[in-house]
């Protein structure tokens, strides 16, 4: 047994000592113990992509970033679209990090036939999802929502319009015109989310939508929640800090020089899909997080060097996020730790089928510079690499090795 001494526990007013199952002792002065984080959109890389991530590297990256639980997308090989696949998937990573797979919503993520929702739901899963793939056919989507009801299964959907979603590699805007890059329009998300919400209204299905990136998307979500629709939205942490201008190497003015994020234009680390959008979209996303209608995901998408050392248009989209999401969120929220913990931990926890009991020890005042070269993830493609942020994760204690917080010291 060991101790964290003189630490501030989330929700309490006085500093005290907390017992932890494994040493060494930690001096908790200046540190805070907060509920551990849950990622809502993690691309695990395994099985199928050993050059991106391994169970060991993903577990290490999660703990380094303060994450005890990861909701994983089905973008692996083979696509988990049968109960047999779920039995094979690892549910616990080295270090005690738990994995919550969302098996595919359609067979092979092909958008044609539903997977076996009933048999899949016998496993403890947060829902079904086609990951980053937009369910193009509205009839398939309607049927999925109607069929899911019997099993109380949540659908995790990325909103998009089938034809507009295929367009472009950056946000469609005057800025894209200048860079000579084809744009993906904000209307893609607006149309896609409208379509989902119409079907939710008709079917009563419960959905999680994300990652959202547009002002119109936030407004639609706001109205849907006010209306009482069972819809939850999330946003990627990096899109609270960066906007489309990073593709040219420019940061939002609010961040000052942002650290060593000196970028050449067309840096493929910021090749994302959906893309980073306009400055006003970023502000709308921040407002949504502050209002607690949007949770924040790490949106962890590891990519191998050979997938990124390419022309901008040809690079595989995606950025790692587990090891920078906390500091990115805290920085974007101006140091508001309560809002940060709500967005990264308390909100997302409600979407898991079982309780989350882990704790994360953080220093809310430390200045850190994101350095992907030192990340535990196998991948180095963090869009925030080089950025100076506020907040640092000191340690993470997943549920099975959590501190004994509830007993007063």
């Amino acid at each position, binding site marked *: 047994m060991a101790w964290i001494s003189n630490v501030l526990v989330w929700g309490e007013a006085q500093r005290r000592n907390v017992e932890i199952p494994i040493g060494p002792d930690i001096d908790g002065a200046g540190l805070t113990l907060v509920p551990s984080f849950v990622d809502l959109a993690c691309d695990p890389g395994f099985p199928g992509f050993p050059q991106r991530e391994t169970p060991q590297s993903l577990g290490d990256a999660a703990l380094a970033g303060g994450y005890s639980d990861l909701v994983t997308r089905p973008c692996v090989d083979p696509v988990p679209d049968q109960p047999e696949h779920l039995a094979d998937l690892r549910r616990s990573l080295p270090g005690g990090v738990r994995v919550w797979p969302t098996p595919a919503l359609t067979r092979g993520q092909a958008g044609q036939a539903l997977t076996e929702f009933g048999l899949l739901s016998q496993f403890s899963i947060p829902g079904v999802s086609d990951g980053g793939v937009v369910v193009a056919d509205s009839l398939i989507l309607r049927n999925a929502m109607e069929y899911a009801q019997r099993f109380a299964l949540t659908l995790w959907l990325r909103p998009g319009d089938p034809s507009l979603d295929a367009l472009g590699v950056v946000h469609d*805007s005057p800025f894209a*015109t200048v*860079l*000579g*890059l084809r744009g993906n329009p904000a209307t893609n998300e607006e149309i896609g989310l409208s379509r989902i919400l119409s079907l939710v209204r008709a079917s009563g299905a419960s959905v999680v939508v994300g990652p959202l990136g547009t002002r119109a998307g936030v407004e639609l979500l706001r109205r849907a929640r006010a209306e009482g629709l069972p819809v939850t939205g999330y946003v990627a942490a990096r899109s609270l800090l960066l906007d489309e201008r990073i593709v040219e190497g420019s940061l939002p003015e609010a961040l000052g020089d942002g650290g060593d994020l000196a970028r050449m234009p*067309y840096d493929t680390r910021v090749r994302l899909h959906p893309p980073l959008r306009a400055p006003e979209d970023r502000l709308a996303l921040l407002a949504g997080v502050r209002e607690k209608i949007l949770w924040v995901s790490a949106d962890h998408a590891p990519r191998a060097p*050979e997938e990124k050392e*390419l*022309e*901008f248009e040809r690079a595989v989209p995606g950025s790692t996020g587990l090891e920078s999401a906390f500091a990115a969120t805290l920085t974007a929220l101006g140091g508001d730790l309560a809002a940060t913990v709500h967005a990264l931990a308390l909100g997302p926890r409600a979407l898991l089928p079982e309780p989350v009991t882990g704790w994360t020890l953080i220093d809310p005042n430390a200045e850190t510079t994101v350095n992907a070269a030192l990340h535990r993830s196998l991948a180095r493609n963090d869009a925030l690499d080089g950025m100076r942020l506020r907040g640092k994760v000191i340690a993470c204690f997943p549920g099975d090795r959590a501190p004994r917080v509830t007993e007063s010291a």
Partner: protein
Amino acid sequence: MIGKDLLQLRGMSRETIVEILDTAEQMREVGRRKVKKVPPLRGRLVVTLFFENSTRTKTSFELAAKRLSADTLSFNVNTSSTTKGETLMDTARTIYAMQPDAVVVRHGCAGAPHLLARNFPWRVLNAGDGIHEHPSQGLLDMLTMRDQLKSLDGARVAIVGDVQHSRVARSNIWGLTTMGAKVVVAGPGTMCRNELSGLPVERRHTIDDVVKDADVIMLLRIQHERLGRAVLPSPREYAAFYGLDLARLRMARPDVMVMHPGPINRGVEIGADVADSEQSAILAQVTNGIAVRMALLYLLLGSDERRPDEVSHGVD
């Protein structure tokens, strides 16, 4: 002063543009001599690396290099074979091992020359990257205009056609506005979208609106290969509403210059009789292209303080 590379005209200073155009005027004299060759780049190696088909730009760069006595090496990379094969960076590493001093690159992706420029110490000349920029074309167009108009300051330039997908238009727009010209554009809504507001141009809806008081009318090639679905109903519809025929040319000033980066689609964006009219500067553009590219190679390589035998390429 010109920098390490020539990647884009956006951000290039007025002084640098003037330096390039003035140097090009001197280079043009070389082409008028009986012996069309001068020695400043003797022993230097210029590689042309083209991932898209090109005849005129590639030939123009190669001729420019040869007139400056540089050695040239030409790589044509079939894009379809690289899609699943060697990456751009691996191709570049191979060529770099041949120790070239400059690489002239054309590529279908915006930013590809930037990738080559930041990863290798060679000098990169962008010969067209996707729909981003084609800076040497912009410069040769500006030289052609300056020849006739004497000054680009205050010149009124109309660009008609697919501005959205045109790297030629972008380079002209940045270069011309830096030099004090005013650029207006016209084209179908799918080719001159609202998003053009990122460029320093004024957008009008009809060709008639822009030709009337223009000093220069620049027509863009309708590139069928670039067009996706429903961008344009048909070439004849384009010709009817945006093509420059003699009737429309008569609405313009009598001394208007008509330019086109080529190759032209006769009867689509330009009437056959207009292409051959005395207002057409299309062939002067070709001649000036060689001079501008000589100037660029000379300024990028000839002013290099390192002597060829001192150049370290970092390849062991």
